[in-house]
């Protein structure tokens, strides 16, 4: 693996590649044996809570931090020890880090002016005009930083990085300072931008919705380690363990042990006594009869009905539960339900289903069911 990365073939060289990368600060391990690579044009997100090592990884790509062990490659070239100002990558900082003593055009031109030989004035002017058009800030050349709104500053920060045509654009929680509505808009803008310019993006975020909605692949981290890498759909539908299932979307977890491993499904006896048929989220052969497992059921996979006949035939579980709480969330309604044996769990009911019949009331008893495909047996943590 290491050698393949070190001597890559010409065309499909990963833009960024980590090979056995560790980062230690004294006794603290910030990154633990990281191995992954980013393909040209890909949009990769590093997702995890604070302290999971995602920012450290980004800083090792940028050159602000150097790995304690292992290799970092940019386009197949080992860059351990190469300082930030000699790397062909650029970063969009969390609070933009725009230069307050320079106007917008000087901020944007900063990177070009550091090149040697320094490009001509006209060339710089031309590039500024192009990039301002790209981020839709024409006519803002002479403005000062503090005259811009948060979203506009964000776009200047993007322009300042993109003008250098970096091999990879690193984004460190670039939308964290914006309010929700604006953040949503900028997410779409960023996604479009990435498709238009074709530059590889690596985004660091702790916001799962942001990571899921924008990226081609998401790398979920915890305590300096990579837990799972995959497409948003992969992570949501086949989470490796409880940590991923819980971090990516909401889930109900039921504990139990494997009763029997069948050809394509697994029977799990839950601790409450109920036995359900489930599908594994990881390789089948990781599970053996008797081993303790968690079963994850996504709230939106639960089917709720007033009449038992409305439930589909092919369910692995059917039960009656009491509605404890109802929260109206716009497109769907969230119910907190309680069943004698399973305890409390969440169900999400799309509004479509409620247009025809009225929503369930608190204290009402409803019929609940879900199918085998909805019950995932998770792997070890």
């Amino acid at each position, binding site marked *: 693996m290491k050698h393949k990365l070190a001597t890559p073939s010409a065309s499909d060289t990963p833009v960024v590649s980590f090979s056995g990368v560790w980062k230690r600060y004294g006794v603290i391990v910030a990154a633990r044996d990281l191995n992954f690579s980013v393909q040209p044009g890909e949009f990769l997100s590093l997702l995890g809570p604070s302290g999971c090592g995602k920012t450290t990884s980004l800083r090792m790509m940028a050159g602000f931090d150097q790995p304690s062990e292992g290799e970092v490659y940019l386009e197949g070239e080992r860059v351990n020890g190469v300082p930030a100002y000699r790397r062909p990558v*650029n970063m969009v*900082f969390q609070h933009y880090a725009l230069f307050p*003593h320079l106007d917008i055009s000087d901020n944007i031109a900063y990177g070009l002016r*550091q090149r040697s030989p320094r490009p001509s004035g006209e060339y710089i002017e031309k590039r500024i005009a192009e990039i301002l058009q790209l981020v839709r800030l024409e006519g803002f050349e002479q403005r000062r930083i503090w005259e811009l709104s948060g979203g506009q500053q964000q776009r200047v920060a993007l322009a300042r990085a993109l003008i*250098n045509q970096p091999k990879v654009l690193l984004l460190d929680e670039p939308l964290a300072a914006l309010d929700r509505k604006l953040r949503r808009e900028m997410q779409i803008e960023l996604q479009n931008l990435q498709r238009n310019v074709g530059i590889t993006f690596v985004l660091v975020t702790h916001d799962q919705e942001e990571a899921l909605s924008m990226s081609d692949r998401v790398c979920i981290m915890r305590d300096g380690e990579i837990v799972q890498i995959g497409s948003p759909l992969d992570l949501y539908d086949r989470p490796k363990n409880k940590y991923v299932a819980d971090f990516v979307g909401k889930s109900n977890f039921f504990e139990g042990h494997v009763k029997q491993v069948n050809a394509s499904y697994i029977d799990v006896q839950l601790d409450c006594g109920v036995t359900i048929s489930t599908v594994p989220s990881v390789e089948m052969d990781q599970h053996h009869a008797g081993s303790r497992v968690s079963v994850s059921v996504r709230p939106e996979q639960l089917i709720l009905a007033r009449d038992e006949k409305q439930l589909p035939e092919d369910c692995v579980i059917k039960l009656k539960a009491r509605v404890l709480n109802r929260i109206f969330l716009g497109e769907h309604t969230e119910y907190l339900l309680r069943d004698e044996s399973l305890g409390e769990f969440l169900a999400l009911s799309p509004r479509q289903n409620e247009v025809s019949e009225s929503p369930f009331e608190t204290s009402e008893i409803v019929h609940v069911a879900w199918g085998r495909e909805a019950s995932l047996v998770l792997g070890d943590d």
Partner: protein
Amino acid sequence: MRSKWPERLLLLPATVWLLVMLVLPLAVVLVFSFGERGPAGGYVPAFTLAQYANLPARFTAFKNTLTLAPLGTFAALIVAYPLAYFLAVKANPRVKTILLVMIIVPFWTSILIRTYAWIFILGGQGIPKLLAMGGLEGIRLINTPTAVLIGIIYGYLPLMVFPIYVSLEKLDKRLLEASEDLGSSPLRTFRNVTLPLSMPGIATGCMLVFILLMGEFLVPALLGGGKVFFIGNALVDLFLQSRNWAYGSAVAATLVIVMLVVVSIYMKLVMRGTNQRKDMSLL
């Protein structure tokens, strides 16, 4: 439309304050400067330009002040900047605390006492003796402009370090990373980002030191002996010793005018140079 009266009323104490604190003392000095010395000293009302005509007699004091004050300010800046930079950017928190305490603690003992000690250190029994033991004979330090300059750097260093430290301290470290990320070497980052952004601190420090140096008399008196006189010394002499209040006032008035001119030119330059919105703190 709300009445403007409450606001004006609020400005009343401020106006009184300004009158008592600034205008009144200066007015007194101005009136005095057109008067005459009484027979036993003090002031006799009159209107004469005789005192101003007499100014050239104190030419050396003006010359010394107007050369050594800018020089001292510049020297203090050169010494203070690296120290402030180290403190704000490089030092870890523990070292920083220790250093800050070290810079502040000397302030706890009167400048008078500390400057006296320099008389000895720069005098015949001090550094020159050490140099003589090393073979460098006949070096004279005390009662020279160099001694005054050393005294100025020593006394005013903290006043210069603090504003620069504050402006470097609040400098967002991510700006330095952003600059490096955009291809700027550490040295160019210093020139492109750190230096311009610490200009308000430099300006504040320089102005503070320069203004205080214009009134300085302790350091020249102690370390300059009778040889390096400042205007401050002239004033002490005229008011306390010869009790020639009228002439003293003329010297003072001239100094104030010179200073106001210098300061306002400087302010304009700084304002244009830094081009910053609100970082210009005056103290």
